[in-house]
């Protein structure tokens, strides 16, 4: 069924208004989670899915590879990567970034870049690439945590 021209016009008008709205500096975000909560409830569990989907466990009985073996498994991995990619912007939202240095934005972007590699690896069902992306993702975590979180006392 074809959409009537009036309806298309209305959609375009609304889309135009929305675009104007999002560019307003006065837009308010709810930002329910703190940075700690965002890490523990969103980013960390998603990273665990990526890390648990690559590598091998060796015992006296033999080797067990962790790479997904089903479409669902790969999709779950790709989905976890997607969550981390988008979490980069969540970290940059005002209440989470207001008192941070410029490096906060760089670290957040770098996390997204590494998660994109993981998403591509999952999309291509490439276990080796996923393993490599998992390592570089962790390095991006470490780089940021060294400046914003880790001290010898915590």
């Amino acid at each position: 069924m074809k959409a009537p021209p009036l309806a298309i016009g209305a959609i375009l008008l609304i889309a135009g208004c929305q675009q104007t709205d999002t560019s307003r500096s006065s837009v308010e975000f709810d930002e329910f989670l703190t940075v700690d909560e965002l890490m523990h409830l969103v980013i960390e569990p998603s990273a665990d899915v990526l890390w648990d989907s690559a590598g091998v466990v060796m015992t006296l009985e033999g080797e067990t590879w962790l790479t997904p073996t089903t479409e669902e498994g790969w999709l779950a991995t790709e989905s976890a990567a997607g969550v981390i990619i988008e979490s980069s912007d969540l970290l940059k939202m005002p209440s989470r970034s207001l008192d941070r240095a410029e490096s906060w934005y760089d670290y957040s972007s770098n996390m997204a870049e590494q998660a994109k590699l993981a998403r591509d690896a999952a999309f291509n069902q490439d276990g080796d690439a996923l393993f490599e992306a998992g390592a570089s993702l962790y390095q991006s975590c470490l780089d940021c945590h060294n400046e914003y979180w880790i001290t010898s006392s915590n």
Partner: protein
Amino acid sequence: MRAVQVLVCLALMALGSSALAHHAFGAEFDPNRPLLLKGKVTKVEWVNPHAWIHLDHEKEDGTTESWMVEGGTPNTLLRRGITRNSLKPGTEIIVDGYQSKDLSNRANGRNITYDDGRTLFMGSSGTGAPRDGADPTERATEEEQQRLEDVRDEEEGDSEEEAATETESESEAEEGEEASEASD
């Protein structure tokens, strides 16, 4: 409030070991509990963000105890010469590191020594682990080095005291036995 804390702890425990696997050193391990483990590798988890080596530690009394030791990422281990093939189950290794704060049989590994005498750094850099000289990319500050030496001296002192106490008890027992034999 106490109930909330307990619930949070239970929730964290329910997340399992993987959620704890990439915390800062200080969140899980105790820099004041250095240890040395020796035995055969039983299992290796060659995974990100940390490889885990499981081994049966041979105790002085001849029994064994299962331990799991956290290492760096597989990629960093590879760069230092520690490969999957060099960690095949059954391989004899010595590992020094630090025990977990909960006193379970988990440790953060620093150096691994193979049968052929090779010693390689197996830990993670930049996780807040003590600068004890094991990590070739870091140098311990004088203060950190002194603190580590103090802890080790203290431990050695404790074991010497224990040994002395054991010797004293043994001599007292022997004297007791001799006295008892003499009176018989």
